């Protein structure tokens, strides 16, 4: 027996949510699927593999003002940015939800990042379990699963005429009124089976592969754009600069990628990580070696976005396989 909500009740509930808070959901933008604020239930897409951009942009936006600097009668004043309105993200996949939990490690570690914490506190996650798997995803090899309810406030699993609803947190309870739920004798469909990636002990293997020429050969075809970092739910490196608009100054934080030329370049021109191979190694070492060493969890949750989006098919699944066997056979 499980809690059930009909498709129609779900639509009315989402309509109510839209009235009281920002409702963010997967929507079609040209032929893209992006998490956007919706103000019509008809714009919400219910059956999809996953969005092009991860929901990270709703917790850690591509650009965000940290604070404003204003002159009030000769006195300089700093006005930190604040998040007022509550937000609910509908249609977040379990892998992305785990990705957001991964970002909590660096951002919420003492002293916590104030703005990120407000985003996190004021955003509820209404997860949508995966019925089918996309060809590139491999979350089951990275400590997650297509029906994993671990990091969402509510998990909906599609069944005939409606959804099984698991309300998992207090935030979820306040969001979904009980009267919309009925108990029904229906069980969730079997989880899709995904391709396996040998991720056990990958951190130690990455450690051993650090000085291998493998990385320079891999970097041959890499064009060093920022796509993989920007579509990835668990890439959180950022850059900070001030902007002076007419009336006031604002300090802006934006996404930055370890592949971009200025990532480690110091004023005066010295760049300790200047070769293509070392920059590419940095990205995969951060996810598969440094992040586990610092926070005890892999920094990749297997959503497959970087595999889909990379113009030259730098495929993290292939890298993990190659690095695992690096001790066995040497890469040509």
């Amino acid at each position, binding site marked *: 027996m499980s809690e059930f909500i009909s498709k129609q009740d779900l639509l009315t509930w989402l309509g109510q949510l839209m009235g009281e808070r920002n409702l963010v959901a997967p929507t079609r933008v040209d032929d893209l699927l992006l998490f956007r604020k919706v103000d019509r239930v008809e714009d919400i897409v219910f059956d999809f593999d996953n969005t092009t951009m991860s929901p990270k942009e709703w917790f850690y936006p591509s650009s965000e003002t940290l604070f404003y600097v204003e002159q009030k009668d000769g006195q300089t004043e700093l006005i930190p940015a604040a998040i007022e309105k509550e937000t609910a993200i509908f249609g977040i996949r379990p892998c992305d939800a785990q990705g957001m939990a991964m970002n909590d490690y660096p951002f919420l570690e003492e002293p916590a990042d104030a703005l990120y914490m407000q985003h996190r506190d004021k955003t509820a996650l209404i997860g949508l379990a995966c019925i089918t798997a996309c060809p590139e995803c491999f979350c089951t090899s990275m400590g997650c699963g297509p029906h994993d309810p671990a990091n969402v406030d509510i998990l909906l699993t599609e069944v005939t005429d409606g959804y099984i609803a698991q309300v998992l947190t207090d935030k979820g309870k306040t969001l979904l009124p009980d009267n919309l739920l009925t108990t029904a004798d229906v069980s969730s469909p079997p989880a899709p089976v995904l391709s396996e990636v040998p991720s056990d002990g990958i951190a130690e293997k990455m450690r051993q592969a650090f000085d291998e020429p493998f990385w320079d050969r891999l970097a041959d075809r890499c064009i060093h754009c920022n796509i993989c970092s920007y579509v990835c739910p668990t890439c959180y490196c950022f850059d*900070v*600069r001030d902007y002076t608009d007419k009336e006031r100054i604002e300090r802006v934080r934006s996404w930055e990628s370890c592949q971009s030329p200025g990532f480690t370049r110091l004023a005066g021109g010295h760049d300790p990580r200047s070769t293509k191979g070392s920059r590419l190694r940095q990205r995969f070492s951060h996810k598969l070696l440094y992040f586990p060493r610092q926070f005890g969890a892999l920094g990749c949750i297997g959503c497959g976005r970087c595999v889909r989006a990379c113009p030259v098919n730098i495929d993290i699944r292939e890298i993990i396989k190659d690095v695992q066997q690096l001790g066995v056979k040497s890469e040509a």
Partner: protein
Amino acid sequence: MKPENPLLPYLSTLQELIDLTPDVKLFRLELNDPDIRESFDYKPGQFVFVSAFGVGESPFGITSVAHRKAGLDVAIRRVGTVTNALHQLEPGATVGVRGPFGNYFPLDEYKGKNIFIIGGGIGFAPLRPIITTVLDYREDYGDLVIINGARSPQDLVFAPEFDAWAASPKTKLELTVDAGDEKWTGKVALIPSVVSELKLSPQNAIAITCGPPIMIHFTLIELRKLGFADNQIITTLEGKMKCGLGKCARCNVGEKYICKDGPVFSMEQISQLIEQF
């Protein structure tokens, strides 16, 4: 005083601006809020981010010592957009200060030991608080040898304090430049050669060095030739930083962050890092 928003700087005022060299100025800052100023404690080796509002913020090693309660000093070389903006400020201007960040030179562990300070160019600035502390608590430490090198005589930082240092007990000051000028009477040699010439003894000694990567590289070779073990050689690493809290992930060397796990490292720690900067 736990900062409730760690990316929000403390408003501070530029008290005094002293020209140390043609492109380096000493900024004497004072935090505006008295409570924060009172509780703002730091140790030699730690750094702060200084904000030039409208341009950005950058990390600078603190050159003053907390126990003298005489304001916060940072030496800034004009080399980029933020430093250029800071150099154009006048005393009384408002800047932002964030920090203190990073670990520090464990001076307590060096008590009773001989201390060799080897600094090159602006790299000498973060070493000055060690000298001030050693001289303020002279009995706690052994011999003090200060080697300060620079491109030219006018590029030697903290020149006004050289006489005081040289006159201090059990203290030797060696100045060297890459190229002298007509008034220069001191050494004209690269820092590593001065290190080997002085035959510094590794007995009960700690060598602390900071400067451009090329200088550190060759200084290490000389120190090791003289018999210094890797845990007796201390240095600071420099990296691109945007937060100082291990969040922006810009300054990592392998799995360590320069801002959080450093900037002070012993050569022993550095040799264990998988990524070599």
